[in-house]
């Protein structure tokens, strides 16, 4: 009994009980559900993932055809979700950065304009914007028969934008390695140059050298004839333009909707980050003779960035989860594919479990990445 008065033992004991209860509760729920499903003669298990899917998905990021398995179809959905959220996060951050800086402008017109941009986007549900962008695309663009030919072989209609696409006859692998090599070389050259500049205080041509390192390998490969490409040119069929690269209006509407929503949130974070930097930093930089633009770029933004990273994590998690609104406007993301699968197999619990696990897993991955990045840029305090 005296053991129970020990603070450490008691703490452990309670923790142990709590974990035990969680496990028992989880097991009870699982057992009840399986038992009820069995009683109602509802099929269970994940065996259905190996069955043939039998439905087509028009927008695929990884190769897929209707004779593939249901598991593969779900993978296509996951890839589509990741593609659109990643692009939206990148685009939204760039736009948001510009808008956020614009919010801090001394020009009242620009400042007010950016303010209304942020407020208009932040205060209306994203779903309504998705409907709006999609409806605008459908109504504003001509039907496919009267498609606009923007450039030779580039067609724009309410079925989307069709471009000629590249196919590699040879050298695709070499090209990929050349690009990777270029990026790595440029990264290290730039870093060394920066380091030297900090040490010596002398400007050097590190940026220019890095640029050549970046494009050099690719250029050399192409000039030496290591790559052969052919263009696949879209052709107007009876109903549709086939061939080439097809960017669908569903994808565009979703990407625009998500990017703009991200940009509004990012803009506010950028503004907050900039405003949090001590006024003395501005004045000190100005006293050194730096122009306002350079003060922003070289002094203020690098310091504001550290403050911006933790709230940005939230925004990226939100955009990733918001991408599931795709279902409203017909973009085949994970939820849309899951719905078709559920409808086909009737195994809703398993399918929902899969897509919850995927969202959870990817969200945790984003958080971990952002925490790691935050740890790198955060001010080390002693």
């Amino acid at each position, binding site marked *: 009994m005296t053991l129970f008065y020990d603070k450490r033992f008691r703490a452990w004991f*309670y923790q142990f*009980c*709590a974990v035990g*209860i*969680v496990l*028992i*509760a989880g097991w*009870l*729920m699982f057992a*009840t*559900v399986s038992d*009820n*499903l069995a*009683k*109602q*003669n*509802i*099929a269970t298990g994940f065996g259905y993932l190996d069955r043939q899917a*039998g*439905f*087509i*998905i*028009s927008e695929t990021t990884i190769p897929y055809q*209707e004779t593939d398995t249901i598991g593969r179809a779900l993978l296509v959905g996951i890839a589509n979700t990741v593609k659109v959220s990643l692009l939206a996060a990148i685009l939204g951050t760039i736009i948001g950065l510009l808008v956020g800086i614009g919010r801090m402008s001394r020009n009242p017109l620009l400042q007010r304009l950016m303010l209304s941009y942020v407020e208009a986007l932040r205060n209306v549900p994203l779903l309504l914007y998705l*409907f709006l962008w999609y*409806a605008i695309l*459908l*109504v504003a663009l001509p*039907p*496919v028969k009267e498609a606009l030919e923007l450039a030779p072989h580039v067609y724009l209609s*309410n*079925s989307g934008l069709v471009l000629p696409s590249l196919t590699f006859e040879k050298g695709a692998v070499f090209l990929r390695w050349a690009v990777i090599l270029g990026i790595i070389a440029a990264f290290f050259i730039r870093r060394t140059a920066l380091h030297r500049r900090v040490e010596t205080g002398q400007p050097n041509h590190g940026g220019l050298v890095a640029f050549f390192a970046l494009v050099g390998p690719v250029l050399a490969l192409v000039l030496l004839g290591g790559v052969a490409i052919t263009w696949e040119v879209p052709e107007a*069929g*009876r*109903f*549709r333009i*086939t061939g080439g690269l097809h960017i669908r*209006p*569903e994808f565009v509407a979703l990407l625009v909707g998500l990017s703009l929503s991200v940009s509004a949130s990012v803009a506010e974070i950028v503004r907050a980050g900039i405003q949090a930097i001590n006024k003395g930093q501005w004045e000190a930089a100005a006293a050194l003779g730096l122009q306002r633009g350079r003060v922003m770029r070289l002094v203020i933004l690098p310091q504001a960035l550290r403050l911006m990273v933790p709230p940005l994590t939230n925004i990226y998690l939100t955009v990733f989860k918001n991408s599931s609104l795709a*279902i*409203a*406007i*017909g973009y*085949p993301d994970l939820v*849309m594919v899951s*719905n*078709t699968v*559920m*409808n*086909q*197999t*009737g195994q*809703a619990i398993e399918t929902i479990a899969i897509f919850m696990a995927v969202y959870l897993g990817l969200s945790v991955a984003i958080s971990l990445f952002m925490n790691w990045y935050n740890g790198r840029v955060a001010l080390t305090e002693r």
Partner: protein
Amino acid sequence: MKKSVLTVAGVAALGAMAVSAGAATLDTVKGRGKLICGVSLATPGFAAPDDKGRMTGFDADICRSIAVAVFGDGDKVDFVPTNINTRFQAVQSGEVDVLSRQTTLTYTREASLGLDFGPTVFYDGQGLMVAKSLGVASAKELQDAAICTLPGTTTAQNLSDFFRTLGAKFELVVFESPDENRAAFFGGRCQAISSDRSDLASIRAVANNPDDYILLPETISKEPLAPAVRQNDSAWRDIVSWSVWMLMAAEEKGITQANVDEKLKSEDPEIQRMLGVTDELGPMLGLDKKWGYNIIKSVGNYGEVFERNMGQGTRLGMTRGPNTQWNAGGLLYAPPIR
């Protein structure tokens, strides 16, 4: 710490409580005093509220027939609009007593979803609709077209199969909501829209100018629409089945909402049994003696239900097609009521 323990205990209690609703459905319905019926989300002709907020449509009238059989009153029914993806879960979990929702009876659904289907109430088939201006006369010409549809096995998969056998490709655009699906088709995003033919007629009825659109002649699949109930409750399934058959039998025997009182005096022994004049057939199923009379009196016969909701006089303007009596060359064949 304490808080989390409490939460966990709560969750555990909930989990233990969620046991299957295994009680006999008829008792549950009678105890509640109301039938709960799962129907479509606003689909004119099948289930849609009218301007007074009263649910009307073919599926809604099937629900009413069942309610009349149980309570003698067609108003004792609550309509629950169900989503296309969660409709089966609504039946499985006991949220609805019967699902009367343009649902196709298939092998997998009956075998693996814990459901039993009643008799086919509507023989349908998947078709395609296009704008007249497209100048297409057959679905086979739709190679490379973009086709709008709702998510679901019997539409997406049938289309894939149809075009695969033709060796043709097409673009599938899937929408979750029927409104967006229609809007995308009318907006010209898709050249064709595909669904059950009855559903297409319903979509066409809401177009600005229905005459601008035509249904293509091909029927690319069989879609027998039937009401569904939870598995292993034969007594309840019997009631659902015979309520449907009563509608069909009434038409076969020429009994209508208007002449049902007159028919009480009929010499035909089957009519006498149907209307509860002789023999006490109703109580065998736990129903009122006059359940058949009540159904016809308050809902009408099959033909009346059809014409009222989707016939030539309505915006849907559908013909009976295979949904005529067996002795007139159709597929409606109610077993004898004796």
